[in-house]
Structures are given as structure tokens and as C-alpha cells.
């Protein structure tokens, strides 16, 4: 990282994922210097922030920021410290890079920190329904929320990501009841509110569209309904089993992804080195999860354009995949499979053979049906050019995973910061530049192909008879340390981070699901689209509510 050549303080840089560092070794910068460094680093489009969060350490609030490079294995950790009370008021980083807007909103919500000039200071997941003002009856109050909202409207379409123009700052959470949605005024402009309960068997969230006729001018997404205090529970729950169960309950559709991020964090802290067999097993489970969800999403995309043939065939294929996972560990979502230091479910020769046979079947049939889907003119006319997000936009909002790769941003932890068995595999990510629904559908097809091959290679190249170890739950953690772990789940980059206290207990635990940034991509995708295309755009991202809300 040559960017750092003129630093007055030597930054903490690593190329290992996960990593552990004593708190005393994390460089502390004065805030203005911190802002300058972040500006320098994020000026490079190939760098993005994997976490920016605050941890209370006695009387100070310590802010950790980790920047990852997409093109080499670098991870840079920076920090700054502020007095915890009264909550500090700081210059907003969002002004320099919009991807920080969610981090700063979260920090402000959790610790009361004010960010001067933050253009969009609203709650991320607060109890905004507490004041007896539910979303349902909040509608009428929206116009009154005012504070310059009306002016914001016109600038919205030009703003790239729409945040610079809004000119609204939340002073405290109470001013957000009723929640101050953007509103646009003018002839023929109307609003459509949806949620928190939606028309299907899906999770809750609130969407407010500002439309002109059928055209969506702006979509504002307000989440937080699923918030159940997971990060705090990681501190309270002291046993390794409890933490493992908690990790796989962050987002049930990413049980394996979040579990891997969690166990490799705990293992790094506890100094446990997973065997090569175990690492391979974890990646097989992870890629199976990816295949299952991608095929399920291919079915769902077909459902949303009323292409029933594509739907039912893919549904049946997904069932084969998740039932194969069930025959390995007894659970269709892989819950119970990923544990610290070992596993209860060794991948036997018989299971490996079952995997190879089932995957061959799935691959052939998936290839057949996707050939049908992607050559069908009526399917293509519904996929192509719908819900476009440019590479520039994806970069600004800090998009990760599939949302980034389908918009031409090559960002994949499997290659940029290889974890587990990926450190021995030279994984080359799939990237498409179109950024539309077609690209997100096609990316799934291409990633399924890659994952199938990856699993086959791992099964053939690993000796599963050796080195099987049982899970270790009585691990001890080092004192006063910071640790961070990244994994590439099927949605994208999953970040788990922990800080330990002087006695080696978890003092603070932070989780970041890829959806944390990617929801903004959905809001951008539907701009200037027909509102009837919203379900299709939504499904093409298939983002997590519970992963965002924690």
C-alpha cells in the first residue's frame, strides 16, 4: 500500500483474514488526520470500508475503521478516540464518501455521536414505533416532518446516490417519530407505502415510493423491524455453543456464511488452527449454501415474471441441494454444521460420493433450464435493462458481493482476502458490467457453475479420513484485543469483529451483513423504473432484513 508513504504514524496493515491485534497496537489518530487518511484511502476505487464502528472503553469511545483493498490482500486498521460523555460532535465522513452514511447513522444511533454535515441522519433500526405512532397511522404526519424535505425532491435523480442534496439532520431520535420520509411535491406526484408486513411469506420492512404516475422517482427503505439485539447477546452469552447457535441465527438463509465468519473470529482469538480437512468441509458447506440460494433465486425471479416453468424446475433443484446438505448434517440450512475448532459431522467417503452424484444431476438440469431461461425472448425483455445500477453508483454506496459484481465492481472476499480453504485456491470472481436484473440473474447462473466445480475440486483434493476433530467450546480469549474476520457469503462480504476486555471476555461484538450497504443499491435500481418492476428488482438482490436489523 504505497498510499501510506507519507504517513506520520505507521498504520496497522495485515494481509491475513481473520486477524487479531492487541488494542495497544491499533494506531490512534487525531480526528482530522483520521479523516484525511480515510479520504486518501477511499479515493482509490479499489478500496472499501469493511467496518467503521465505535466501542466504549471506559471513559472513551474508540472508533475502529477497517479499509480493505479489493486487488491485493491488504486490510488497514485505523482508530480515533473521543470522550464518551458528552457524546462528541464530529465532521461527517459521509461528505467525503457516501458509503459511510450507514456507518455514521449506526454510530449516532448507538452512542449519540453527532456527525456534522451528515446529509441523511435517520435511525437505522431504532424503536421508532414506540411512541404509539405506528407506521400504519404515521402516513398523515409525513408531510409535516418537513425540515427541508420538500426541497430535496428535485435533486434526487441527479445525485448519483441522492444523499448530498437532502439537507436534513436528525438531532435526536425523538424527532424521527413519525419517521421523516422524503416527500416530493408537485402535480401528479403520489406516494405508495408498503409494509412492514408484506404480501408474501417474507420478512418485514417498510418501503415508501414517491411516484409520478407509474414511474418511481424515489424509494426510501426503512428497516429495523427485525432488530432483536444480536450483537448484545454475543456479549451476554458466554458459552461457545450459545454463540455458535446465535451466529447461525443471524440470517437463517446464510447460516453457514455467518457461522464461518464467527468461528474463524473465535478461532483466531483463541489461537485454534482449523485442520485443512475442516477448512475444506466449511467451504463445501458454504458453496452448497450459495448454490441452493442462487438456484432458489433463479426460481423466484421466474415467479416474478410469471414464468412458471422456470420456477418449478428450479424449485425442485433447490430441494435436491438443501436435502443433500440435510443428509450431511441433519438440517436443510446447514445449522449445527459449523463449529469452533472442529465439527460433529465429518464428511465421509459415502457422503462425498452422494454429493458428487447429486451435484452432477443438479448441474446438468440447471444448465438445461438456464439455457431455456436466458434464450427466452419474453424472459429477456423483462430482465434486460431493468433496475440498472452503474459501477460508479455501486462504488459510492460501498456495495459488496453480488450487488457489486453484477455492476462491474470486482469485489469478492474469496479472492481478495481468502479465508479457510480459499487460501489454497486461486479463485477468480465472476464480474458482469450490465448492472441490471439480467446481470444479477446471470451472475447467479455463472456462480453456481463455479461453486459446483469448486466443491468437486475440494472433494477430490481433500483427504477426509484424516484429522477429524470434535468442536472446542472451552476456548479462552486473549485480553484487550481487537479481532476481525471476513467471509464471502452468497450475498457478499460478511464481517464479524470483537473486542475483548482485560479479563478476556467479549466486551463488544460487531456483525455486518452485506445487506447493510446493498439495500441502497435496491433503492437506486428502482429509480425511474415502473413501480411494477419493484418486486423483480427486489428479488434480483434478495437482501436480508434480519441481517441488516440484527
Amino acid at each position, binding site marked *: 500500500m504505497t498510499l501510506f508513504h507519507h504517513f506520520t504514524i505507521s498504520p496497522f496493515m495485515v494481509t491475513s483474514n481473520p486477524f487479531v491485534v492487541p488494542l495497544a497496537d491499533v494506531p490512534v489518530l487525531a480526528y482530522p488526520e483520521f479523516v484525511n487518511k480515510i479520504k486518501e484511502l477511499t479515493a482509490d476505487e479499489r478500496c472499501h470500508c469493511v467496518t467503521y464502528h465505535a466501542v466504549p472503553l471506559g471513559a472513551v469511545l474508540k472508533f475502529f475503521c477497517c479499509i480493505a483493498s479489493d486487488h491485493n490482500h491488504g486490510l488497514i486498521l485505523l482508530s480515533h478516540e473521543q470522550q464518551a460523555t458528552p457524546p462528541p460532535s464530529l465532521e461527517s465522513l459521509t461528505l467525503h464518501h457516501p458509503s459511510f452514511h450507514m456507518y455514521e447513522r449506526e454510530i449516532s444511533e448507538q452512542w449519540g455521536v453527532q456527525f456534522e454535515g451528515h446529509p441523511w441522519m435517520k435511525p437505522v*433500526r431504532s*424503536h*421508532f*414505533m*414506540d411512541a404509539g405512532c*405506528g*407506521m*400504519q397511522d404515521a402516513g398523515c404526519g409525513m408531510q409535516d416532518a418537513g425540515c427541508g424535505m420538500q426541497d430535496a425532491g428535485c435533486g434526487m435523480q441527479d445525485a448519483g446516490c441522492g444523499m448530498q442534496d437532502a439537507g436534513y439532520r436528525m438531532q435526536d431520535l425523538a424527532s424521527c417519530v413519525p419517521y421523516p420520509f422524503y416527500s416530493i411535491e408537485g402535480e401528479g406526484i403520489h406516494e405508495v407505502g408498503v409494509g412492514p*408486513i408484506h*404480501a*408474501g*411469506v*417474507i*420478512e*418485514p420492512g417498510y418501503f415508501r415510493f414517491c411516484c409520478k404516475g407509474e414511474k418511481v422517482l424515489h424509494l426510501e427503505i426503512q428497516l*429495523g*423491524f*427485525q*432488530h*432483536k*439485539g*444480536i450483537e*448484545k*447477546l454475543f456479549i*451476554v*452469552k458466554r458459552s461457545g*455453543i*450459545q454463540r*455458535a*447457535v*446465535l451466529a447461525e*441465527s*443471524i*440470517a*437463517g*438463509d446464510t*447460516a453457514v456464511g455467518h457461522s464461518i465468519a464467527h468461528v474463524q473470529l473465535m478461532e483466531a482469538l483463541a489461537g485454534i488452527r482449523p485442520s485443512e480437512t475442516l477448512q475444506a468441509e466449511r467451504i463445501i458447506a458454504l458453496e452448497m449454501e450459495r448454490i441452493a440460494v442462487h438456484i432458489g433465486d433463479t426460481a423466484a425471479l421466474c415467479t416474478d415474471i410469471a414464468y412458471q416453468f422456470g420456477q*418449478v*424446475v428450479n*424449485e*425442485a433443484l433447490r*430441494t435436491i441441494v438443501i436435502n443433500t446438505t*440435510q*443428509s450431511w448434517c*441433519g*438440517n*436443510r*440450512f446447514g*445449522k*449445527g454444521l459449523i463449529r469452533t475448532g472442529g465439527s*460433529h459431522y465429518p464428511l465421509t467417503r459415502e457422503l462425498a460420493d452422494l454429493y458428487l452424484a447429486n451435484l452432477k444431476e443438479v448441474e*446438468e*438440469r440447471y444448465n*438445461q433450464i438456464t*439455457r*431455456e431461461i436466458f434464450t427466452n425472448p419474453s424472459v429477456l425483455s423483462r430482465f434486460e435493462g431493468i433496475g440498472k445500477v452503474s459501477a460508479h453508483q455501486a462504488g459510492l454506496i460501498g456495495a459488496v458481493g453480488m450487488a457489486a459484481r453484477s455492476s462491474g465492481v470486482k469485489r469478492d472476499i474469496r479472492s481478495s482476502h481468502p479465508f479457510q480453504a480459499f487460501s489454497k485456491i486461486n479463485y477468480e470472481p465472476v464480474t458482469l458490467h450490465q448492472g441490471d436484473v439480467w446481470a444479477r440473474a446471470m451472475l447467479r447462473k455463472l456462480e453456481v457453475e463455479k461453486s459446483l466445480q469448486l466443491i468437486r475440486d475440494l472433494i477430490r483434493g481433500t483427504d477426509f479420513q484424516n484429522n477429524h476433530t*470434535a468442536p472446542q467450546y472451552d476456548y479462552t480469549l486473549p485480553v484487550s484485543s481487537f479481532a476481525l474476520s471476513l467471509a464471502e457469503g452468497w450475498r457478499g462480504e460478511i464481517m464479524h469483529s470483537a473486542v475483548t476486555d482485560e479479563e478476556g471476555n467479549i466486551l463488544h461484538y460487531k456483525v455486518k451483513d452485506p445487506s447493510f450497504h446493498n439495500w441502497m443499491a435496491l433503492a437506486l435500481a428502482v429509480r425511474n423504473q415502473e413501480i411494477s418492476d419493484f418486486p423483480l428488482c427486489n428479488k434480483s438482490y434478495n437482501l*436480508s432484513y*434480519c441481517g441488516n*436489523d440484527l
Partner: protein
Amino acid sequence: MALNFISIFRRHGRQYVKDLRKAVIPEGFRGRPVISMEITPAEEKVAEMLCPTGAITSGPFRLDLGKCEFCMECCFATAGKIRFTNDHRLAANLREGLLIRKGEDKTIRINPELVGKEIRSFFGHALRLRQVSAGGDNSAELELNACGNVNFDMGRYGIEFVASPRHADGLVITGPISGNMAEALQICYDAVPTPKIVILAGTAAISGGIFENSPDLIRSFIGTVKPDLYVPGNPPHPLTFINGVLDLTGRK
């Protein structure tokens, strides 16, 4: 193109599970647990201590399926003295029906005497359900969706999920009921016309599961209504859910 199309049809074949009432999930599936009479006091203590959600309690020693996350750690720690069978029939209409005592090895059944008459007469032929995810982790939601897919095809019994609570005969709740969803859940419940049923799907909904003591939950709703069906699981398997509903509504 045409050949590809025909080939897909051929290989797709018939996907539906022919008889959902007799379907068996292969061995290895984590279903109804059985506690051996031979379990030693030391093993009981280990299992009780290990259990991440306090589902295992002593005096008398028992396992509460409504709290169990099916992690199976108690099975590994007691060398199989507590084992999980592949029996997927786990639904009960009484909370106490989910308690597994030492030596018990029989399928969990619905107690027909406790089922309201109107439930069987109104909902015995068709049932429309409104699902509310209240802090769910999306795995129970995916399994409920799978109930209607080409494999399980719950619709063959006239059981379907509907979009509006006004069109529904009951609520299916997933998740431990986050504070932020408590009001929306109550509004949705009130909007369902009576008579109506309430189904708690998944361990998180039944007891809170691993989230039980989180200050960010508001579970008071469960105290104000009497759930008609408890469907344990992490998440509940589609066969567990469908058979539970069929048993409740008195179907063959």
C-alpha cells in the same frame, strides 16, 4: 430448443411427495428426541449445562422442544443417551405437549379434545393463513414457502398463505417477536376475522429460543392469545408444519 424443453420436462418428472401423511425423512434428520432411561445423573448434568437455551431441565429430567434449537450438542455429550430420531411429527396444540420425559418414545399428537369445534367445522376443508415474521431469521419463512412448492404442495389440501389478514383464517408467527414488530403483529391479528387460529412456527416463536432474554423483544402478545398450534424446529421442516396443521384441523 424443443429437445431441450422436452428433456427438462422428462428429467423434472413428478416432484410431489405422494403421501405427505406417510412421508419419512431419511435417518440423520434432527427430529423428535428420545431420552434413554440409562442416562446417568452425571450425563444429565452435562446435558443441562451444555444446552444453549435451557431447554433441558432436571427434577424431573426433561427436554422442552419449545425451547430446543436442535443443535444436538446434548446428544454428542451424552454418547447418544439423548438422541434425535427422524420423526418429524413434532407439532402439539398444548405447550406441555412439547415436553419430552425420560424413556418416552412416542410420536407427539394433537389432543383432539382441546381443539375448538369451530376449528374443525370451519377450517377442516380449506384454510387460509397469513404469515407474520416478527424477528424471524428467514429460515422458518423459507420452509413455510417450501410448504407450497412443487415438492410439498400444501395447496392440495386447500391450505394456502394469503396476502391480506382480511382473507385469512389465522396467523402463522415466526421469529421471537421483536419489539419493533409487536404493534404490527397486534394490528395484523386484530384484522383477521373470527373465528381464527394462531400458529407459532419455529422454536424462536414458541419461546424466543436463543433470543429468549433479549431486551429488544416484546413477547406480551403470546400472553394475550392462546396459540392453537406449536410447531417446533429450527426451522420447522415443511412436513412438520403441514402435518401439524392437518392434525389440528382434523384431516385424514
